[in-house]
């Protein structure tokens, strides 16, 4: 066997290991039911902010804790403790992806991804007061 063949075999082995490694490192998208039936297991949970409930952020007490209520895609509501400072523009969020795990009756998230409306999507053309248009 040529040395290049040996190397190729090693490389293929590493490639397979990389695939397996990536899959085992990746978590899965879940709903609250699943996350709360496996307490302590890390999940990505997708949902929406429940706007009827208050959000609690008291930076004077702890700048790295933000509490709100989220409805998952099945409409199940849970209290979420986000262990980060309150994201800027949080109220505008349209969809939320939480990365975290269930602890007791709360979902403790260590990270959050938000999708805000109109950031990349088309709006419709709107008229503005011509006086507000700065002269070029």
């Amino acid at each position, binding site marked *: 066997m*040529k040395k290049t063949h040996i*190397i190729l075999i090693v490389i293929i082995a590493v490639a397979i290991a*990389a695939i397996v490694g990536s899959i085992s490192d990746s978590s899965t998208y879940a709903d609250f039911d699943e996350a709360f039936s496996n307490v302590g297991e*890390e999940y990505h949970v997708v949902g929406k902010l429940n706007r009827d409930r208050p959000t609690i952020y008291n930076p004077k007490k702890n700048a790295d804790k933000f509490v709100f209520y989220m409805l998952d895609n099945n409409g199940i509501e849970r209290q979420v403790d986000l262990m980060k400072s309150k994201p*800027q523009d949080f109220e505008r969020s349209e969809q939320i992806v939480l990365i975290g795990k269930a602890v007791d009756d709360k979902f403790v998230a260590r990270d959050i991804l938000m999708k805000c409306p109109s950031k990349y999507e088309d709006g*419709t*053309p*709107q008229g503005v007061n011509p006086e507000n248009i700065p002269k070029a």
Partner: protein
Amino acid sequence: MDINYVGEHLWAGTLGNLLVILSFIAALFALVSYYKASTTSDSSWRPLGRLGFRLHSLATIMIFGLLLFMLANHYFEYHFIWQHTSNDMPMKFLMSSFWEGQEGSFLLWSFGHIALGNMLIWTAGKWENKVMTVFSSVQVFMSSMLLGVFILEHRIGSNPFTSLLRDHPDFARLPLFNSATYLEFLDGRGLNPLLQNYWMIIHPPTVLIGYSFALTPFAFAIAGLWKKDYHGWIKPALPWTYAGIGVLGVGVLMGGAWAYEALSFGGFWAWDPVENASLVPWLIWVGGAHLMLINKNKGTSLVATFSLICLTFILVLYSTFLTRSGVLGETSVHAFSDLGMSGQLLLYLFAYLIMSIALIAYRWKDFPKTKDDEALWSREFWIFVGALILTISAFQIAFSTSIPVINKVFGSNLAPPADPVAHYNSWQIPFGIVLLVLIGFTMHLKFKKTDFKKFLKSISLALALALILTLGIGYALQLGNIYYLLMLFTSQFAVLANADYLIRVLKGKSQKAGSTIAHIGFGTIMLGALISMSASEVISTNTSGVDVEQLGDEYSNNENILLMENDTLPMGEYHVVYRGREKEGIYIRFLVDYYLKEGNTYNKSFTLTPFVQLNERMGNVPEPDTKHFLINDVFTHVTYATLEIEKPSDKEDYKEIEKDFYTQGDTIFASNAILVLEKIYRGISDTTIEMTEKDIAITARIRAIDFNTKSHFISPVFVLKEASYIEPIEALNDQLGLKILFDKIDTETGKVQLTVSETKVAKKDFVILKAIKFPFINVLWLGCIIMMIGTALAVYTRVIANRRS
């Protein structure tokens, strides 16, 4: 009801559409002509091919210019213009709004192809026909992306010249368009605020031009396969290959610089999917370019060379698909919306993928075979190993980045790694370590066969030096992680071994210095990245020691800190004060002062102004600020702030903050000043106070140093009226909101009792801050510069060598 709209510039759309069609037809014409020129002996086809390509170039450049002109003049009657500019957008972001649209990006990419194609018409000689056939075929695809015509209910391309009112039926019914003068009221949607940053003016175009370069080696490789000239194509393709690697490399690094300067996560490289998407083709390209070298010198590794070079171009297409199809959606800071072009892009991708695989497979039998095994201690063997490691490294990144694509294809439900940095690092750091070792010693090997003892001797100096430095630096930085230590060692070995080679073997001659210098640069980048990231220190930790959350303690992070206006908090070696905010247009700037304490005085070191850019329509965007020093950077980011400014109440309410006995020289800390009891003396300086001869007055002179290190004097007086009763006279300072009362003297110790009160502001402004210190990040930037110089030198050397032969 027909309305005669006023002020529209319909000529622009008509001209634009004509040019789009011309550009497409000319590319098609060039393709046919060059194909005929390649396959027949009729020499009249080549001039026709040139004519077609030049016509296509002219049309595309005119489209480019016309769109820029329309953007600059805010022709909002066109959808593209309305979508990407607005009246209040500064002119400097013109290019950003140009490429923000997918059509603009394709145009820029296309522009790169055109520039290269025209240079190749001039220089490619006998390769021209076949190389330009490939170029023209790509340009047919590229210009079809702008067509915007419907064929069998499928839209082909997205035309940038569509009119808002006429070509978008959803919009046409809007009441706005009932007015003949609607243009007077119409403002564009404007540029995404994330992109209104100077790095964004140059980073994406550089990446796109780098992508354009990838077509050149690909076209030469296809031409080589087609012509059955498996070695001849390498020489003319090499300078373009190096140049492209350089340009794309700069582009990728600029992405890192942008992330470091303008994004909030604090760091240079966070394995963001879009940045990964541009890194993957670069890695494969570097691997392919090294294989081209083996091929040129020894004529082996043909299959691998062709595969990697073709793969580079295909990965460039894949990368564009990833970033432009919206498939990455929520996984990236970038993510662009889909224009419905993904299908077309995929078609394009698979066409070239299948063509490449088919051609390589078809020619496989024809490739010259070598029977003998490579010598173990030869340069080509280890270059080959290095190229494979680059490939596998790229594969790992591509696989993990493609998880959303895998979900789409297989209907799976995988979420990307929850901690991407840890995930990618766990693979890429070991790959990096092996690559750095290879970079270090391979230069010291000769092609074909090397005397092993001589080889050992020649690398021993670099090995020894790197080992000593690693022990020293590793100890100084307290690096405990074995991977970090290994990377520290190997990156220094790579730098030193190449520097050694440059000095001792090349004796500074520039003939082969390009690659050596580029390798020194790469090693330096790795060294800088390692030190700045592994030894970075979050200094905004909660030092108050209260309220560290017990719940979910493994998540509890301590990296953000609350800073009240005019409060001082120690952060690392600094004392940091939030001095308030300034609003200027759409920017709210937060003034954060950093002080260094020397003895008893606080000296202002620097001010940072992280800001938030307000944008009603697209969301507010915060941007950090960084102070650059030679040996470290201080990064400061406002992670949260209330954006509506509340006015302090008018009532001057005082709150007692200190009441104690003090002696001369004592210090008292107030919220916005440091008070020093300078002097206690008998007498009074204030002549407005009436005194009789029997009264005894004692003044406490207090120097109040504010955060601009300006001194204010506050002198409360203690008066003993007629030696019988006490009448303290309080002293005020409105500017600092301080009130000091001198109410007692301790006759035994001579200490005086002072009561310090501050104005109570109803609600004080505050920010949540994150501050990180990055040591030696300049090593990383230095590495980038060295690598670019090396690459440029390598291109220059190749061009000169090709011209001589």
